[in-house]
């Protein structure tokens, strides 16, 4: 056995062991520097695995070091954060989809406007934020939208195609088009008439003499003053009439008593009745009252 063979075998095995250790450490822990741990907790069913990235505001700052299934419906997640990064205390952790095939990452999102200078200490627990909708949820919504669209399409097929709705719609559009054409014609005619009217008005306005207008206005002002004076007189007369009517209503004076006292009315009725009976008696027995003597 040559000494050189022993050395070469020893070197080979030593290098292999070093490569193995370094490689496993690098793959499992994200590098030879260990980083510091942060913890968080999510509900079951997040598809989390060891090695998935941890993002701070979209930047990869570490990886998921361990995921422990708890019997109470939660996952304890250990995140290993690179030493050069600090996670603000306002951050919340969510599980975010990063592809079409169910791959996820833990996203740490600081609260906007919060204090970004105070950071989590190693070993702290980052509170979990509200879960983001996953691909399955989005696909579920897409399915429901698709179903709704299908129903709408079927209804459109029934109402618009089978029941002749499209034909009616086409007719309505044609009628509307014809109506619009007529309205355009009418508008054009009215426009022409209006133009003529305005021209005539302009001509009339131009022909009016301004001095005549001035004298007319003065006359109108004088007439208005006369009307005002007459109105004042009328008001005075009306006041006097009100006094007279007040007296009449209260039964003052002869006219008032005539209007309010019913005795005269009864006397007149009695007198009229007496006269009626007298006339009847005269007709019946004229000789009693009238005696004609001739000679």
């Amino acid at each position, binding site marked *: 056995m040559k000494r050189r063979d*022993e050395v070469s*075998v020893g070197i080979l095995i030593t290098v292999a062991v070093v490569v193995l250790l370094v*490689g496993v450490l690098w793959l*499992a822990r994200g590098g030879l520097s260990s980083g510091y741990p942060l913890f968080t907790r999510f509900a079951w069913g997040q598809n989390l*695995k*060891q*090695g998935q990235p941890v993002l701070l505001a979209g930047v*990869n700052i570490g990886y998921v070091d361990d995921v422990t299934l708890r019997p109470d419906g939660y996952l304890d997640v250990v995140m290993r954060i690179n030493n050069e990064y600090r996670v603000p205390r306002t951050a919340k952790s969510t599980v975010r989809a*990063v592809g079409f095939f169910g791959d996820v990452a833990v996203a740490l999102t600081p609260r906007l406007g919060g204090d970004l200078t105070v950071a989590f200490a190693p070993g702290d627990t980052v509170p979990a934020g509200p879960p983001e909708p996953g691909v399955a949820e989005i696909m579920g919504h897409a399915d429901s939208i698709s179903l709704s669209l299908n129903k709408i399409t079927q209804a459109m097929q029934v109402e618009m195609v089978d029941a002749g709705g499209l034909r009616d719609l086409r007719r309505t559009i044609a009628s509307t088009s014809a109506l619009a054409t007529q309205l355009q014609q009418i508008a054009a005619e009215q426009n022409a008439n209006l133009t003529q009217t305005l021209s005539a008005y302009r001509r009339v306005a131009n022909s009016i003499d301004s001095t005549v207008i001035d004298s007319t206005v003065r006359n109108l002002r004088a007439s208005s003053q006369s009307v005002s004076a007459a109105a004042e007189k009328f008001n005075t007369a009306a006041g006097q009439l009100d006094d007279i009517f007040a007296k009449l209503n209260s039964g003052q004076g002869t006219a008032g008593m005539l209007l309010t006292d019913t005795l005269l009315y009864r006397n007149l009725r009695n007198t009229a009745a007496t006269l009626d009976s007298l006339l009847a008696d005269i007709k019946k027995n004229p000789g009693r009252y009238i005696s004609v003597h001739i000679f």
Partner: protein
Amino acid sequence: MHRTGIRLFRRVTHAVVGTFQRVGAWSYFSRDIVRALSEPATYGPETLRQMKNIGVDSLPLTVIVAGFIGSVIALQTRYQLFPGVQLSLVGLATRQMVILELGPLLTGLVLTGRVGARMAAEIGTMRVTEQIDALETLAYDPVAFLVVPRLLAAIIMLPVLTVFADAVGVASGYAMGVYATGISPSDFRDGLKLGFGTFQVVYSLLKATMFGGAISFFSSFEGYIAEAGAEGVGRSTASAVVITSVAILVLDALTAVLLAPYLQS
């Protein structure tokens, strides 16, 4: 028709009996190996020499094969991806294929050709030139002197070579992915680390250990039972390569069936 049937029956019977006979011979050979393990003074020095032959001398070939395989995996994966798939998948696929499957498997198959054939030829030549008989005459246990050192050396050095194969395969995949196909280094690294568990490396090394044992066992056995003449040595060498290759593939499938569920992280 009647004779053809009889001839076919004889052949089938002969094949079945031959298989049982070979399994029995393997069992006796295994027993001899276990018995020979009690003689470290006999196989100790030779084991170190065989480790150099199997490990150090096979390193260049193993590294070359793993380098090409890793780079081809990265290249193929990159160009099979349709738009929208994250490119970190290239790193993930390269790591999984190299470490879990192709690293140990190709190392085993390469060493079957290079080391297994050599073992069968060496031991077979010693058998046909009656050197093995001479060892027995000198009260040396030929199994302890010839087979056990090769077996131990292969069991130790195959995992060592597989470590290099895995590392070089992943590194060449990284180089090809980043420098030839435009994947960003961070994407590739993210894929490499995604879902990695140390059991994946254990699985790879476990397979390599089994492959090393299979190579040395079947190759030594085929050489050990070589028939007289140069033709017998050639036949035993060819049988060693074929049987060992098949055995490696069968072991690979068995380990996948038995251990793959534990690989899910």
